[in-house]
């Protein structure tokens, strides 16, 4: 493998302070502040239209924020650190008529690599992602999964310290999703910082050390996975019931109900409503089991978003 990037002893790879961006009077991101510690996988979560892509584009200086400050790898703007950052946009983009190796060499060169170095690193990476045989074929000849792997290589070829991935699992089958997960974990193992935008909670839960939940352009939650879950812990209940259970979703203290085997996972609107819920259940069905449980990230997400929207 190519030499590992010499990573600086940065405390925060990325700092956002009160960043705001509006389009035609509609606020896409509002007063967003966050710190992404170096060397972690940081999840930027949120429903569609939450402002995740806009936030990433501002970090990449593709958009300029209307207000606020963004610091990337200790620099006041990503423009001063472009060669140290890798960015994979949500909508993948590679020249469809260009050859696979040619595209990688061009992208690597734009990121400051010498052409010979880019060529040799690209060849290594193509072998690693099992695309060596396709090196001289056109990008458009590749399958979607192959193009995704190629895009990933184009993003990390120059060994960036900070890797920004916008919806890296979108449109991938489970096998290719696992491949991407492996790549991301490998990046962390190499000491790189990964900023991951996704609305796929299972993958985020598996990968992220820290998350930031964004809804309607505003920050809803921010912290380590454990911190975020702990905050929501008292609002997650697992029950085993006998009888008709359809009424549960309509109870005022319930925000979400998900069947899980014999259990029902119930998410409460507020953290101190479990006694209230139990009282309701006892009066209407037979309760065989009732326990407060650690919520999944999906439940945290749904709960936080529905609370804010309410």
């Amino acid at each position, binding site marked *: 493998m190519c030499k590992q990037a010499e990573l600086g002893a940065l405390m925060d790879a990325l700092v956002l302070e009160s960043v705001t961006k509006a389009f035609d009077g509609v606020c896409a991101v509002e007063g967003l502040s966050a710190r992404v510690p170096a060397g972690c996988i940081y999840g930027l979560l949120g429903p569609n239209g939450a402002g995740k892509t806009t936030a990433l584009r501002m970090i990449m200086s593709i958009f300029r924020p209307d207000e606020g400050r963004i610091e990337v790898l200790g620099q006041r703007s990503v423009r001063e650190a472009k060669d140290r950052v890798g960015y994979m946009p949500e909508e993948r983009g*590679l*020249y469809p008529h260009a050859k696979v190796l040619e595209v990688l060499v061009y992208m690597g060169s734009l990121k400051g690599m010498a052409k010979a170095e880019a060529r040799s690193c690209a060849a290594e990476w193509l072998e690693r992602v099992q695309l060596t045989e396709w090196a001289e074929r056109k990008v458009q000849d590749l399958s979607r999964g192959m193009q995704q792997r190629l895009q990933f290589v184009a993003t990390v070829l120059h060994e960036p310290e900070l890797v920004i991935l916008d919806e890296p699992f979108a449109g991938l089958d489970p096998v290719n999703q696992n491949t991407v997960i492996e790549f991301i974990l490998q990046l962390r193992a190499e000491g790189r910082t990964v900023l991951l935008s996704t609305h796929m909670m299972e993958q985020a839960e598996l990968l992220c050390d820290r998350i930031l939940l964004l809804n309607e352009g505003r920050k809803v939650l921010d912290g380590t996975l454990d911190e975020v879950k702990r905050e929501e812990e008292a609002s997650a209940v697992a029950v085993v019931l006998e009888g008709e259970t359809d009424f549960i979703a309509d109870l005022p203290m319930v925000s979400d109900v998900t069947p899980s085997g014999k259990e029902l996972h119930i998410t409460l609107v507020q953290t101190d409503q479990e006694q209230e819920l139990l009282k309701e259940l006892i009066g209407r069905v037979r309760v065989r089991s009732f326990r407060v449980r650690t919520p999944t990230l999906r439940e945290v997400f749904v709960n936080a978003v529905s609370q804010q929207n309410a």
Partner: protein
Amino acid sequence: MRRTFLVAQREFAVHARSRFFLLGVLIPTVLMVIGILVLGDDVNEARRSGGAPQGESRRTRPADVLSWKHVKLIVTDYGDGLGREMSQIAQRAAVHGGPGLTLTFASMPTGDEPKQEIEQTLQDGMADGWLVIPVNVLEGVPATFYSAGSFDSSAQNAAFALLNRAVLNARLRESGLPADESSRLTKGADMTCVAVEPEGTGGAAGRGQFNAMVMGYAWFFMFFMFMGIFGLGQHMLTGLIEEKNSRVIEVLLSAVSPQELMAGKVLGLAAAGLTALAACGAIVAAVAHMRGLIESIDVSIVVLFVVYYVLGFLLASSIFAAVGSVCSQLKDMQGFMLPISLLFLAPVIAWWHLASNPDGLLAVLLSLFPPTAPMAMVLRVSVAHVPAMQMGLSLALLALADVAVLKGAGRIFRTGILMYGKPPRLREMLRWARSD
């Protein structure tokens, strides 16, 4: 700068492999080569007969008084051997480097309508003219010259000059003068012809000629600008739209700034245009050399040509880059292409007016207005003298326009490149161009 160069390098490779590039080289080259092959003789003839390019001096000898292009004459001689005398004079002129002349002797047609038979012979292309020399031509009886339906001055001049000299020689012989004395008396003066040009006006200035060679520069230039705008310019636009639609643009913008990206695209396109120009120019120069016309190519016009081409191309490609950045589909682009093309190609529409009135108000205005300046000015300097002041002002305005448009286009590009959907209005784009 390095990133701009990398983008330019890729753009150049993409354009140079495109069919637009191939057509951009082929079409003007083929047209110019055909022009040289077809018009080469006329140009050479013009050079010999005094229409030579500026600055060329030449000496005329008496034999050159009878200079003409290759002329075929039929002579019916009732005038005591004057026809033979004409034939000898023509042969002597040919020995001294004069052009070809074929004299054929024939009797007058004997049919009912001799004039019609003569006309038929000429219309069939058997000869350029038919000269009938009467018996008492030395006493002042006029000869008769028949030409084909159209007026052919070269054939008429040749017949008149030959007959004149033959009559003069015959009269001198009648007077009893020795041959040497006759020759001395009829020897004309030598004369050196120098084309005088106003100082600092460049190559073709002051010629006031409207011949094929000088127009060739203007035609050549027009085709190149035309192919550049409609070929390579459109190729860049479609490439940009493809980059937007395939979302490559966002990946590129994570590596280069919009300004670097646009500058790279414009430079790559300009380099492709210049390469096409150089390739075409080299082929045309080689063919011109083979035809002995290389001396007719005016270096100062070629330099002016290249300068205007580069400045004009930069202006056009900057505008194209700005337009391409705000378009998401080809049909959006077509809406912009027509007015832009008209703006740049207005001199083509007014071509004949400008060529026949190179110092008129319209010609002056178009040669100062930056988008039309390249074509209009190259046309003007090809056919007339353009004051240095106007030339300098035109170049300065064009260079200033390049800087301003490149800057404004960069701002439009920065804002427009990530926009999808309906393109903005012109007023909105101008607002972006002004905003910092």
